């Protein structure tokens, strides 16, 4: 018996859903466009749009007598940034962000290396839990907890006292600029809290990049005559660099923009985030707030450009 080729009953698409499905099958790009539209609209209008309007605001200025915004293109607000008081804020914040980033690379690298190279099964689960757990609790709770730890009569000074190392703590606090009355009102305190809060954002990208380095590359390096140090310098570090850069983007930009930590822990000198907060709020100086907000963007763009030029992304 010869059988004609027929479409099996029940497989013919009927109804709206069926016809839509057929349409998408014939025109796969249509489906892609539909799926991409919402995120692109979000990114394009709400995210980039507000960024653009921020940029625009920074080119306006404020009338010093009336306190009203003059909608005229001017660089006056940017000149204002260079006034010693404002310039100090930028410098202070950038230095803090750099110090926090550097320290978190130093602390995160061995942890990430261990997790990527040696931790298996249960150890790996413990690692992820250990790194992520602090992120589950409220940021404010953590910062206030640190205030208690760092306070004059706090846990840390109690600890230093009970092991007889109080003179060391006092010597550290006596350091000019970064020292202070107690850790909780010094730059060291601000630094420690920043370091604690952002550390997971450095550990995870570095760990991910190290995870992708095959073990036999390290063996090959040793086989070709490299010492452990040389293998680290010429193989591990270059291949981990994209992860380090990714992590430092987090720690650097998060520190540049934060306005809560320096308000709770530290000497009461302003950071960029606080300046933005103050200028757009009570002072009502939106143009200056916008100009301040542009600074981290420029710093990050410059940083990424430098990283690219130095070949940080060559291994990608």
């Amino acid at each position, binding site marked *: 018996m010869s059988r004609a080729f027929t479409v099996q009953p029940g497989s013919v698409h009927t109804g709206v859903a069926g016809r839509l499905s057929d349409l998408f099958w014939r025109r796969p790009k249509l489906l892609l466009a539909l799926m991409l539209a919402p995120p692109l609209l979000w990114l394009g209008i709400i995210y980039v749009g507000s960024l653009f309007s921020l940029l625009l605001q920074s080119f306006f200025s404020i009338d010093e007598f009336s306190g009203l915004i003059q909608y005229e293109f001017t660089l006056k607000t940017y000149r204002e940034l260079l006034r010693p008081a404002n310039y100090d804020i930028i410098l202070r914040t950038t230095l803090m962000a750099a110090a926090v980033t550097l320290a978190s690379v130093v602390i995160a690298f061995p942890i990430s290396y261990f997790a990527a190279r040696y931790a298996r099964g249960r150890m790996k689960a413990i690692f992820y839990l250990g790194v992520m757990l602090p992120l589950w609790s409220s940021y404010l709770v953590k910062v206030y907890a640190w205030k208690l730890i760092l306070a004059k009569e706090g846990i840390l000074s109690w600890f230093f006292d009970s092991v007889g190392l109080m003179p060391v703590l006092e010597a550290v606090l006596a350091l000019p600029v970064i020292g202070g009355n107690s850790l909780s009102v010094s730059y060291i305190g601000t630094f420690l809290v920043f370091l604690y809060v952002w550390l997971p954002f450095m550990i995870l990208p570095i760990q991910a990049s190290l995870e992708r380095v*095959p073990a*036999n*590359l390290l*063996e*090959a*390096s*040793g*086989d*070709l*005559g*490299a*010492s452990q140090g*040389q293998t680290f310098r*010429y*193989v591990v570090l*270059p*291949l981990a660099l994209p992860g380090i850069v990714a992590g430092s983007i987090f720690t650097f930009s998060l520190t540049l923009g934060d306005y809560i930590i320096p308000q709770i822990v530290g000497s009461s000198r302003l950071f960029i985030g606080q300046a933005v907060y103050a200028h757009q709020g009570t002072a009502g100086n939106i143009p200056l707030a916008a100009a301040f907000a542009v600074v981290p963007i420029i710093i990050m763009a410059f940083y990424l450009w430098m990283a690219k030029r130095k070949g940080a992304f*060559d*291994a990608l």
Partner: protein
Amino acid sequence: MTVAVEFKKVSRHFGAVKAVDEVDLKIDEGSFFAMLGPSGSGKTTSLRLISGFDQPSAGSIHIFGEACETAPPNRRPVNTVFQDYALFPHLSIRDNVAYGLMVRGVRKNLRHQEADEMLSLVKLDNFGDRKPAQLSGGQRQRVALARALVNKPRVLLLDEPLGALDLKLREQMQEELKALQQRLGITFVFVTHDQTEALSMADKIAVFNAGGIVQIGTPEEVYHRPRTKFVADFVGSSNLVPPQISLDLGGQSCWSSLKPEALTLTKQEGAKVVGTVKSIRYLGATNRVMIQVGETELSALLSNTADHWTRGDFVGLQVKPGALYAMEENT
């Protein structure tokens, strides 16, 4: 002749697993030595013990007379070509090849010059500026080779060097490797699970099974005179002939090996051993004929021009004189 690598009662145990168990081994300088065996037989672990990526649980390893069980890889006069090449993805081909010279502090222009010479030796001139990702599998293989050879090792270790290449490329590389080894006169030690590769390239083959060496010999010895059933089966797809049939065919009364090409078929009448033709497979110039003899199945490789047999025929069996080899191990 100088001994390049020597194992004395070397063992490597991972917990209860005896990856390598009391292996004795001598590799002569300048030879092309193959470690052949199925996966998990201990051949790769043995290679890693020579390169220094792993340390023996017991026994001693000498490289050119020097005990080196505990020396790190960078202190041994050996270099390795890795199975998946292990090229550094962030370095150019030239810098990959020059790596060993760089870590020894050779000046940049000197080491680049040497790297280029080595690249030209493996026929990759003008590839120096590319990155490993831009090369094909066969080209990467050559880079891995150049990168190891630039250090002028006294022993070159190759871990399944051709495993990732397709058949045609593999055959071409086999010839090139052999030619390179003869030109440079370096001892090559390579690990493979491919018996034809071992047979065609090596001067000497060590057949590994279950953490030990079952037989060491020239390709001819290993192929024609397998010591155990395992070797007969793994190396040559030999027939394993039970004692009674072996005796009837003119051999000794013990398990013997018989190459398919040494078995011929005759008419049933007057033959001491008879069987039934079970299947015939056409292989071009030859036919592979399977014959059932009692419990045993034997395979014969017959020329296509010879007599025609069909399935179900009763046939007599004959072997060429001296083709039956008695094996030492009879289990």
